C-alpha cells in the first residue's frame, strides 16, 4: 500500500534500476529526498552520479538535461513546484519541444519533467498554480496527470518510456490522501488515453488530477437525485483523447469540465471547443466549465473560495439537467 508520492518515488526507483541511462536532476532531490520526498531513498541507492542535486537554476537544469538527452541519457527532472518552471520556459518551449523536429529526428529530446502542482493544501504563494494550459498549447510536448497511486506509477513509467518529452504534473493535494496497492515491479499505463472512472447516463464530468476525487463525490451526491454521471479522468492533457470524450458526450448529451486553472484559455476551453466542433448536435445543453476564477491563485486563506468544489460541480450539473 503506497501513497501517490511513494508510488512516484517507486516508479523512479524502477526506472533507475532497469535503464542505466536514466538520471534524476533537481533541487534538493538527493540527500534531502525531495521537498515532498518524491525521490526518497534514491540518492542513497543510486548515488550522486545518477540522482543529482543541482544548483537553484531551472533554465540550467532543463537546458543541460536536454543536452544530456541529446547525448543519450534519459533525464527525469523535478521542478520543485510548477510555478518555478517559468525560468525554464524558454528552454522548454523553444528547445525541448522542438529539438527533435529541428534536428529532423537525429537528436533525442526524451525526458520527463515532473512537477507538483495545484492547490488545496494551504501552501505559500505561487506554490499552488495550475498552468498546464501553457504546455498543452505547446506542440511537441506531452502533458500527463495522474490521479491515484496506481496510475501515478504506471503513467510515470509510461512517460519515462516515451521517446517524446513529457511534462508530468503531480497533483500535490493527492500526494498522501490515499493509499493503494501498487505493484512493486515495472508496469506502464498508456500516456495518451483518458479513463472513464465511473459510468452513468445523464452527464459527463471531465477532469484530471485532484479534481477526480471531487468529481466522484459529486457523482455520488447526484446519484441521490437519480442523476448518473460518466466521470472521465483525462490523464493525458496533451494529446487529448477525443474519442473517449466524444463517445461519452454523445451518450449523455451534457458535459461539465472541471479544472483548477483560471477558466479563460484553460484546457477546459479546448475540450469545450472540440466538443462544440464535433458533437454539437448530440448536446442537449450548453457545455459548462467549472474552473478557477480569472485571477491569480490566491494566498491560501482564500484558496477554497477560488477552487472548484463539489457544490459548484453539482450546481453546474443541475443547471444542465434542468436546461430549458
Amino acid at each position, binding site marked *: 500500500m503506497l501513497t501517490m508520492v511513494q508510488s512516484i518515488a517507486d516508479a523512479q526507483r524502477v526506472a533507475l534500476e532497469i535503464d542505466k541511462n536514466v538520471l534524476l536532476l533537481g*533541487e*534538493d532531490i*538527493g*540527500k*534531502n*529526498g525531495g*521537498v515532498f520526498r518524491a525521490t526518497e531513498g534514491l540518492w542513497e541507492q543510486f548515488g550522486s552520479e545518477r540522482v543529482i*542535486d*543541482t*544548483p*537553484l*537554476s*531551472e*533554465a*540550467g537544469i532543463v537546458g543541460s538535461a536536454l543536452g544530456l538527452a541529446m547525448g543519450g541519457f534519459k533525464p527525469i527532472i523535478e521542478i520543485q513546484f510548477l*510555478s*518555478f518552471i*517559468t*525560468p525554464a520556459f524558454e528552454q522548454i518551449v523553444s528547445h525541448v519541444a522542438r529539438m527533435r523536429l529541428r534536428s529532423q529526428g537525429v537528436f533525442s529530446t526524451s525526458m520527463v519533467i515532473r512537477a507538483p502542482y495545484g492547490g*488545496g493544501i*494551504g*501552501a*505559500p*504563494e*505561487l*506554490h499552488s498554480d495550475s498552468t498546464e494550459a501553457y504546455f498543452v498549447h505547446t506542440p511537441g510536448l506531452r502533458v500527463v496527470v495522474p490521479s491515484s497511486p496506481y496510475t501515478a506509477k504506471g503513467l510515470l513509467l509510461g512517460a519515462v518510456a516515451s521517446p517524446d518529452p513529457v511534462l508530468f504534473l503531480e497533483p500535490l493535494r493527492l500526494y498522501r490522501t490515499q493509499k493503494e496497492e501498487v505493484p512493486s515491479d515495472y508496469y506502464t499505463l498508456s500516456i495518451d488515453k483518458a479513463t472513464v472512472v465511473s459510468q452513468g447516463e445523464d452527464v459527463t464530468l471531465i477532469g484530471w488530477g485532484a479534481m477526480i476525487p*471531487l468529481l466522484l*463525490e459529486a457523482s455520488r451526491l447526484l446519484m441521490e437525485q437519480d442523476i448518473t454521471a460518466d466521470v472521465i479522468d483525462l490523464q493525458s492533457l496533451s494529446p487529448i483523447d477525443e474519442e473517449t470524450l466524444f463517445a461519452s458526450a454523445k451518450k449523455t448529451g451534457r458535459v461539465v469540465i472541471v479544472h483548477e486553472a483560471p477558466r479563460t484559455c484553460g484546457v477546459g476551453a479546448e475540450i469545450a471547443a472540440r466538443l462544440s466542433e464535433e458533437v454539437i448536435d448530440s448536446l442537449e445543453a450548453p457545455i459548462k466549465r467549472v474552473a478557477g*476564477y*480569472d*485571477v*491569480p491563485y*490566491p*494566498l*491560501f*486563506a*482564500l*484558496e*477554497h*473560495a*477560488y*477552487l*472548484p*468544489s*463539489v*457544490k*459548484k460541480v453539482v450546481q453546474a450539473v443541475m443547471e444542465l439537467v434542468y436546461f430549458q
Partner: protein
Amino acid sequence: MLINHLLPCGTLTDAGSSFWRTLSINEKLDLLFFLRSVRMLDRRMVLWQRQGKIGTYAPVEGQEAAQVGSAYALDKKDWVFPSYREQGVAFTFGISTTSIIQYWSGRIEGCKPPIGYRYVPPTVPIATQLPHAVGAAWSIKKKKETGIAIAYFGDGATSEGDFHEALNFASIFDLPVLFFCQNNGYAISVPFAEQSATKTVVEKASAYGINAYQVDGNDVLAVYHVVKTAKSKRKPALIEAVTYRTGAHTTADDASRYRPEGEVRIWLNRDPLYRYEQLCLKEGLLDEDQIEKQDQQVAKELDRTMREVEKSHPNPSSLFTHVYHQIPDWLKKQQEEAANDVNHGSIHC
C-alpha cells in the same frame, strides 16, 4: 576580507570599537531591541505554525543580525525587496507584526505596505526581486531622489539567471542598488560549495565590476556599518553576509537530513544575539532585568496581535480586487458568483 566588528564572545574588534563610539545610545539600544524582538516573533511563528494558527513558515533564527543590522541602516524612503525569510528586515524596517502574521496566514492584506513605505511584498520565486530592485533604483536615479534600493536574497539565488542580469544592469546603468545576500550556507539542502565554484559570493562581483563587501552576518554592528557605508556611496554593491540558519528551511523541512549536528553546534556558538547582548551588558547600557521587561512587553503585544488576526476573516471578494486597476465588469460577474457560493469554506462540500 570578512568584515568583523564583534567577536562571538561579545568583544569588539579594533574596527568595531571605533564604529561603536560613533553610535548613539538609542542606536545601540534599538539594535538590541530589534534583535530580541525578531527572535521572539520568529519563535512564536514556528510555534503558531505547529498549533495550526498560520501556514508553512520560513524561520529566521540565526540570521537576525544580518537582517536587523542591514534594515536598521535603511531610511524610510528606501526601496526594500525582501525574499520570504525577511521577517527580521520587515520588523526592523517598520512593518507591523499584524502584516507579518497575516502574510503567513495566507492573507493578502499582509502584503500591503504601510502608507509611504516602499516595502515590497515578499518575493517567493528565487532571485526574481533583484531586477525589480534595479528598476526601483533606476527610478530613484532618474528622479534624483536620495534613497537606495536594496534586494534581499540567499546564496541559492546566485545560481539563477536573474541574479546575473540584475547585477549587469545595475552596473551598466550605475544605479544605487544594494544586493544583500544572506549566505546561510544552504539552498534548502544544497550546500554552497555545490552551488557555486567560487568559495564566496563576493567573488562574483568582479564579473560586473561592482563594489563588494563580505561581512560577518552574525555581527549586527559590522552589518549595520557595511550597509551604511555601501548605501552612502549610491553605487551598485554586492554584500555577502556570512551567516547560518540554525533551524530548518521551513516548518515543513527537516534540516537534520542534510546538515551534520556538529555544524549546527558551531554556529550556535556564533549566535548573533548572545554576542550583542553581552556587549550591551558589559557596556552597561542596560541590565538583565530591563531586557526581561522589554521582552515581556513585546511578547504581550505579539500575542495580542495574533489573537486579533485570528478574529478577522478574509473576504472572498478580495480575490478580485486589484487584479486590475478597477474590477472590470466581466470579472464582477465572477466576483458575484464567488459571493453567492456561500459554502466557500470547504472544497468538499
